[in-house]
């Protein structure tokens, strides 16, 4: 009797567990399937967009940039953004798929410059050359991605497996999708990319510009004493390490430990000329004792002390008990915005806690630009939206969309409750940038 009861109870328990297990399994599969479907959609969309981009590039080659060609270029610009979005949704971070992503980015930048920025002007011969090359490259990518798509469809391959293979410790060598995509990337890489440097430019290039620094090379020891002078920390343990090859410019990283307070400061010093590129010191910051105004004076005094002359404070911000300041170099009465220095100052005692002058170092050559405006401020103002009431104006050097320094009239004006910054090219009166100032 007892035995039968036990058997019955166990049997019920087994059935319940089995049902529970089945449901868990079903739910898990549903989640996995959902993720897989997202990946599949992203990939299919990607191939579709690249098809379309290829077609539109072909059309532009036949029509030129004005008229219908301009529409195609705008469409390419839009499609390349969508395609890049799809790449971002695929588990490709650890896969060499860089070249393809870069190609898409270049296609996008090129079509933007050629259509939106150029307006109605016809394409230049060198633009055609670049178009031609993009057309060929996108054709190759299109075909290769279609091949991979075919393999995926034929063999019922799953992106989830790609993700697993990439995440696993072993070398993901025998996954057809991975191999296929790697091949795509290699093909893109085989093209001789003679990009106009402007097309691929980002702010990250400032780091690369630092390799053009000049000056006597310094030793590890020199780097330490430079940082000691800069930070004025006497009782600290200094360690200097050379930066790896990936940094793009030869430099040392100097770490300072103040064991007495448990504080650490880290700095990077360029090997050529011994310029401090940045430093960050971390410590607890007590309650605010000094004003943002006094802190900005302290930051200015620090710059003066370390030989940065003619710097103008262009931006100050308070975040709780720290102040963050941006200074720009002044060349005569021209504000050189790209040549900027950023500083963070503690508002408990006015100590400079962080410093960054890579913009300043990377834009030394701006001083050699011709700094005489070709048009008057009044003429420059004419092209502006007349409902903006100009409150302040001066000459400034900015970096335009192509990454080139240009001399501009800067107008700071108000419209309703908003403040705008309008930059008008001082050579030809073209509006380079209009910004809504939010902070």
């Amino acid at each position, binding site marked *: 009797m007892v035995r039968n009861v036990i058997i019955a109870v166990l049997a019920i328990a087994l059935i319940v567990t089995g049902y529970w297990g089945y449901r868990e399994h079903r739910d898990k599969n549903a989640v996995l399937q959902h993720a897989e479907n997202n990946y599949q959609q992203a990939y299919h969309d990607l191939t579709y967009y690249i098809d379309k981009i290829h077609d539109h590039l072909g059309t532009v080659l036949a029509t030129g940039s004005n008229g219908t060609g301009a529409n195609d270029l705008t469409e390419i610009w839009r499609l390349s953004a969508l395609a*890049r979005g799809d790449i971002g949704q695929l*588990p490709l971070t650890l896969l060499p798929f860089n070249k393809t*992503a870069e190609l898409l980015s270049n296609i996008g930048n090129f079509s933007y410059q050629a259509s939106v920025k150029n307006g109605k002007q016809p394409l230049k011969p060198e633009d055609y050359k670049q178009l031609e090359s993009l057309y060929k490259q996108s054709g190759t990518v299109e075909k290769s991605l279609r091949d991979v798509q075919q393999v995926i469809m034929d063999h019922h391959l799953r992106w989830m497996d790609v993700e697993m293979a990439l995440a696993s410790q072993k070398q993901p060598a025998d996954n057809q999708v991975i191999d296929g995509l790697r091949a795509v990337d290699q093909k893109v890489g085989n093209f001789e990319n003679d990009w106009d440097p402007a097309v*691929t430019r980002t702010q990250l290039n400032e780091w690369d510009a630092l390799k053009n620094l000049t000056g006597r090379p310094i030793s590890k020891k020199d780097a330490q004493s430079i940082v000691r002078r800069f930070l004025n920390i006497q009782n600290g343990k200094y360690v200097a390490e050379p930066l790896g*090859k990936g940094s793009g410019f030869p430099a040392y990283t100097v770490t300072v430990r103040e064991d007495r307070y448990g504080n650490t400061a880290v700095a990077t010093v360029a090997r050529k000329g011994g310029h401090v590129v940045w430093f960050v010191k971390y410590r607890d910051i007590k309650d605010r004792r000094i004003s943002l105004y006094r802190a900005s004076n302290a930051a200015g005094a620090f710059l003066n002390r370390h030989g940065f002359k003619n710097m103008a404070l262009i931006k100050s911000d308070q975040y709780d008990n720290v102040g963050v300041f941006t200074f720009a170099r002044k060349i005569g009465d021209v504000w050189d915005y790209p040549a900027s220095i950023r500083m*963070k100052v503690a508002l408990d005692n006015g100590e400079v806690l962080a410093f960054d002058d890579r913009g300043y170092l990377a834009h030394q050559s701006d001083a050699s630009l011709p700094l005489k405006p070709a048009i008057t401020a009044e003429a420059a103002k004419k092209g502006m939206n007349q409902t903006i009431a100009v409150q302040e104006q001066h000459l400034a050097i900015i970096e335009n969309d192509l990454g080139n320094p240009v001399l501009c009239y800067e107008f700071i004006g108000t419209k309703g409750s908003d403040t705008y910054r309008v930059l008008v090219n001082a050579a030809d009166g073209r509006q380079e940038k209009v910004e809504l100032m939010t902070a």
Partner: protein
Amino acid sequence: MQKTRQLVLAIGLGIAFVWSAAFAPNAANAFSPQVIQKGATGDDVVELQARLQYIGFYRGKIDGVFGWQTYWALRNFQQRYGLKVDGLAGADTKKKLVSVTRYDKKFVMDNIRKGNRFTYYGGVPLQRQTSESYRGQPSKAGAPGGKGGQPAANTAKKTNYNHLPAGFSQSDINLMANAVYGEARGEPYIGQVAVAAVILNRIQSPLFPDTVAGVIFQPGAFTAVQDGQIWLTPNQQAKQAVLDALNGWDPTNGALYYFNPDKATSAWIWSRPQVGKIGKHIFTK
């Protein structure tokens, strides 16, 4: 526009005059001695905005953040009263401001703490200038703390002023703080700034998505996202690290990847050109 402004000004001045005659010693509990400059946050900025609003120069929100709108209001004030027009609230400017306006600290600070929508124009009864009466729900005023309002903000002694780096929202910062905390909570501070800087470098790079969320949620990009540790509650230090990175500090010197050499065995990541090691992470381009 100009006319109404002058009218408001005239009314404001008239009332201010009557008031200052009646409550002459109210200047005693005004501004702290600091010079207030653009970009500042805090109680002094609240007072500055409230006083400028009182006489009609400032029409924006009284939020304790010295932004552009406050800046222009202050300059207009300085110009109108024959002071040096420099956009700084120094001793002379503050003295003049105190002498021509009245500041009801309790009213203003209470409204800020409660997160009410309110204004502080001179000559308009204060009860008509807060959102409680805007809503016209007298029943709520009876219940202290207001269920529909912000109960938590009431208890905090220090008022926080929301000041963000240009181009980023509070949720961007929170999301990044989550990612940094999930990825690098055991790392030294500089290592946390470095992780935040890598996220920002990726946004800049053509190889990666262009948004904070796009970069963070890219499949396989961050282990903390994959295993859900990103949803831990970040601490203050992680937020500070994100703020430093947003303000332009990059301890990685422009790196796009990082990995923990004890865990990562992907040959590809090892093949990337290395920049340096911070804490447990090796940063690469």
